[in-house]
């Protein structure tokens, strides 16, 4: 086993050499998490906007539940999706378990409430400001919701990035439904967990660097987008 400084060196060498195994894991991670965030946005943005502008019984309870689900433990999501997709489960016939598809489903379930809850808050704030003006111009409620989603696009983009950050960093859900199969369902987080327990520190460290770098990059993009928007749109 390498000493710790040597592991760092090997890790950096792996990244520098664009190691094929490393690259495959990183690409699969990106594929799974980006797909999940795409689906979660398609569900979460309209749902959040509908709760923000709608007036229906149970709206407040729904808001509380949604806010609570933001902190949903990823292992619990993994377990639930596992039950759904397992052979005996209601969606077992699709044979998704232990495939990247199952991981996308799990991360969608994990991030959709986060994106919905954040966009609910963002759209509600925009609605409070624009409500009378939009009503005065004759906008129906669905029309107003669509306008608000577009008008708050910069803040919503940040919410989507937050969803991506959560998806890319979680390990529990993908571990359970993906099974961490070498070359098939192994992503950055599950590989880090496995390689660390096996004692293969360089690969774990290299993936750790990439993951942290990715999260930092996402936040940098969010920050610069906000700055740019503040200058251009006020």
């Amino acid at each position, binding site marked *: 086993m390498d000493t710790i400084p040597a592991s760092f060196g090997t890790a950096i060498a792996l990244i520098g050499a664009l190691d094929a195994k490393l690259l495959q894991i990183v690409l699969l991670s990106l594929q799974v998490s980006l797909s999940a965030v795409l689906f979660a946005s398609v569900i979460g943005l309209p749902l959040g906007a509908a709760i923000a502008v709608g007036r229906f019984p149970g709206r407040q309870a729904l808001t509380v539940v949604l806010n609570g689900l933001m902190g949903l433990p990823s292992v619990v999501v993994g377990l639930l999706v596992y039950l759904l997709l397992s052979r005996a489960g209601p969606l077992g016939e699709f044979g998704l378990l232990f495939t990247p598809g199952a991981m996308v489903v799990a991360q969608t379930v994990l991030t959709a409430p986060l994106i919905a809850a954040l966009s609910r808050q963002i759209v509600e704030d925009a609605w409070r400001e624009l409500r*009378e003006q939009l009503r005065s111009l004759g906008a129906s409620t669905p029309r107003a919701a669509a306008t608000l989603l577009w008008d708050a*696009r910069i803040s919503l983009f940040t919410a989507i990035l937050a969803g991506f950050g959560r998806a890319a960093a979680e390990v529990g859900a993908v571990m359970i439904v993906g099974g961490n199969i070498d070359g098939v369902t192994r992503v950055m987080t599950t590989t880090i967990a496995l390689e660390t327990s096996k004692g293969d520190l360089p690969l774990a460290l290299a993936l750790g660097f990439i993951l942290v770098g990715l999260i930092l990059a996402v936040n940098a993009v969010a920050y610069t987008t906000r700055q740019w928007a503040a200058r251009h749109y006020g």
Partner: protein
Amino acid sequence: MSASIFPLVVEDISFEHGGQRIIDRVSLAVDGRVRTVILGANGAGKSVLMRLIHGLLAPTGGRITWCGRAERPREQAMVFQRPVMLHTTALKNVAYGLKLAGLPRRRRIERAQAALERVGLAYLAGRPARVLSGGEQQRLALARAWALEPQVLFLDEPTASLDPGSTREVEKVIGEIVASGCKIVMTTHNLGQARRLADDVVFLHEGRIVEFTPADVFFRMPRSPEAAAFMNAELPWR
């Protein structure tokens, strides 16, 4: 131009909120020719009355009819004390209202452009609306309303947050809107502005109309003690 939406008849409307009666059995009838100013102290219910008439709030009692019909006519617009703009250019903010009104894309850009010219903001058409000054944004709000070619324009304290220079410009635009044949209904607690812009004065006190008279009569000799007290408080040197 479409058929007149006037007369506007308000019959016995009330508005209650949180157990409190904010508008108390108000009745009035106005036609489309004159400029009506709603005067009153803070909390008298001016803004609420205007929102009820414009249709932003539903009265808890009574009824409002436009030319004998109960449905809210489209030929009306409102400008608020604080202009609220979408995160896009000045031109697109004006065009957005026309989009909701169902105008095809080319026509709405033309009309938005023309409206910006009329309020003197054509040179700012491509600028983000939210970075304009307060006075420019209020003129933009007037352009957005004017572009809809309303028969009545509601103005809720349109200059209350503006400096004197911007106030003058906004009042000038309001004058041009009136000259174009649009009726205005405006709230203000600025007596000077009320004098400059009112033909008729509705004086509200604690949610009730205590006077509804021609402006020259109102300012010369208010009939109600409440209106007299309001004018003395606003112009203590009289």
